[in-house]
């Protein structure tokens, strides 16, 4: 819809997004994040190519500037994790080491950690992109569900969204939290932290369409994803009027109980 101009003179930058398991890990409108990244890049005259990598699809570390992985139902997640470990762990680790952006949401957030500890039985390995682990809270323990507001470290505006997870996640020394919980549960409902960051790898329980209502964070991901191949690229500002209204609406409701 052409809300901005190309930014690098003659060169039309291209953003390459790799959407991992869009047919399996898509539980809560996860694709909204990809829709937002694509549009916010195109509105600025940046070309976008989205590839979808599902079961059996090989990927390489140079496929994309940004990798996105969402959450799925338990059964779908079990199917995906086998393929993730076998085919995608190495290339993703190489891509992250080379500065590509990885955004992992909800179930995907758990999968990029070191392991998941079930109520019974052995730990299930994750791909270890982030130094964190997730524990099943025990049978009968309530899921952590509701609107979630966090305050990122470093003065960025609060991030808003919805969370719905049974697992409790704890960070190791190699990962920093994405922010402090203002309202809601976050990583484990206890330590007051939400999400994890290491380099350009991000994980969060702000599930599904996290980026529509957090345009500052969306643009941070775009800048980091494009910055590697297009140093000095600047993103033209967008009006973000509806985004601001949607954020205000959620922030105004935060802390208030939801009417039955």
């Amino acid at each position, binding site marked *: 819809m052409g809300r901005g101009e190309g930014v690098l003179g003659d060169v039309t930058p291209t953003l390459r997004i790799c959407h991992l398991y869009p047919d399996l890990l898509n539980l809560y409108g996860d694709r*909204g994040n990809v829709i937002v990244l694509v549009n916010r890049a195109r509105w600025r005259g940046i070309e976008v190519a989205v590839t979808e990598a599902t079961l059996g699809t090989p990927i390489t570390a140079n496929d994309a500037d940004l990798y996105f992985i969402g959450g799925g139902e338990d059964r779908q997640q079990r199917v995906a994790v086998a393929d993730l470990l076998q085919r995608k762990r190495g290339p993703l680790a190489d891509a992250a080491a080379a500065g590509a952006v990885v955004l992992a949401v909800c179930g995907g957030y758990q999968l990029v950690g070191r392991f998941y500890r079930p109520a019974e039985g052995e730990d299930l390995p994750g791909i270890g992109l982030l130094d964190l682990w997730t524990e099943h809270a025990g049978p009968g323990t309530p*899921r952590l569900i509701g609107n979630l507001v966090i305050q990122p470290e470093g003065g960025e505006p609060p991030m808003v969204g919805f969370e719905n997870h049974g697992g409790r996640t704890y960070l190791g020394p190699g990962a920093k939290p994405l922010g402090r919980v203002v309202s809601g549960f976050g990583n484990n409902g206890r330590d007051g932290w939400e999400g994890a960051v290491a380099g350009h790898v991000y994980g969060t329980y702000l599930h599904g*369409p996290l980026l529509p209502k957090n345009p500052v964070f969306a643009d941070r991901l775009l800048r980091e994803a494009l910055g590697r191949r297009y140093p000095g690229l600047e993103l033209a500002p967008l009006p973000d009027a*509806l985004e601001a209204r*949607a954020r205000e609406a959620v922030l105004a409701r935060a802390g208030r109980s939801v*009417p039955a």
Partner: protein
Amino acid sequence: MREGPLTAGQPPTLRVRLSVAVALGKATAMLSRALRRGGGTTMPGRVARAVEPAVVGLLSARLPLGSVVIAGTNGKTTTAHLLAHIMRSLGHRPVHNRAGANLAAGIASALVENADLLGRLRGDLGIFEVDEATVPRVVPALGPRVAVFLNLFRDQLDRYGEIDYIAGLWRSAGAALSPDLAAVANADDPLVFEAVRELPGTLVTFGIEDDRYARPALEHTAEARYCYRCGTAYAYEVTYFGHMGRWRCVTCGVARPSPDLAARDLVLSGPDGSEFTIDAGAAGTARVRTVLPGLYNVYNVLAAVAAAGRLGASLGAAASAVGSVAPAFGRAERVSVDGREVRLLLVKNPAGFNEVLRVVLAAGPPAVLLIAINDRTADGRDVSWLWDVDVEMLAGRVGHVVVTGIRAEDMALRLQYAGIPPEAIEVEHAYDRALRRALDRAAPGGLFVLPTYTAMLALRGVLQQWGAVRGFWET
């Protein structure tokens, strides 16, 4: 004890307790109506169950024709409405729960309201829509003769958990079912078929057989992409919407059965309804015409006709009764406001929303739409699902969209990222003003209103104040 006197073999204290439960339930209903507390669709049942926890089983056992339960993510209310209409046309007197009051308390309320103080019922047949997660709790008490399983889509994940969990509940509910049961199931939905194919009793399947209405590929809203048993990707010969279609697992060989009732030779007339032939094999064929729009209502009609058949209705009689059914509450319901037609099309989840958008667009590009999104418990508190809806199909085809409801801004954002120009998106939180704004822009043909459940109640409230509809407890 189905046909026997209720009191036989019961100690007098239990008889008294049931009478007290019914009396207090009825009093609650009257009070609730007098206070205008929304018609009292669940409180009477809650009160009665507090007095006599077995009230559902005790009262439903008095229905001579027994009960039908209708479960599934989408189409419960419409299918119950269709089946009740068919059975009424054959001279029966169905007892049924009010639209959406489909938890145990809603079913208890319906029974209590239709019972006298001795526990005698005014009807001869129970038709109950049952919330998908409530199936294992109410089915053992009701002991239904027919159980209808429509479809399984993601819906209100904050409340129900995952679809696999629901399918598991249905499978386990089978243990409580009688071998006399007929399970009426959608053959085109592999999740449903896998969940019910081993239930005791007779399996009656229904499906669509018309490749002209097939879609080129599985939609984003498809839930069942991989075989429940072995994890192989289902091979679809044909898909209709979501994961409905002619599916097969090439590894373990499970495949969509040839349906006992098939819809053939479809003619869809956008929002004005459809026409098709029901082919029931040896039981014959019948042409059906319905004002209920869209492919999803073809499934609802098939399900209702199949259930009616198990209750003794002939195919011809059932098909002809379908022709005179009006839309259920808020489901393609039409009302007139200042000479303009307003059509309410409930949207609850991505699969249903997509189908409603297709129905709307089949009437031509709309000048204006009113979309109303709430996030109360009955709507689902998480509005993330709006991003699973293919709102993109509106881009370049809708002139203006008024959005209202608690989460109006979330819908506005979704529209913007689907390619609707921001200047064509209007946020108006007040329901009456939103309706007025949309009506002002509506073409003479009418206005389509797409609300979530509680937003639909609120908008209907406005229409009622304007004198355009009756109260929902009167419908």
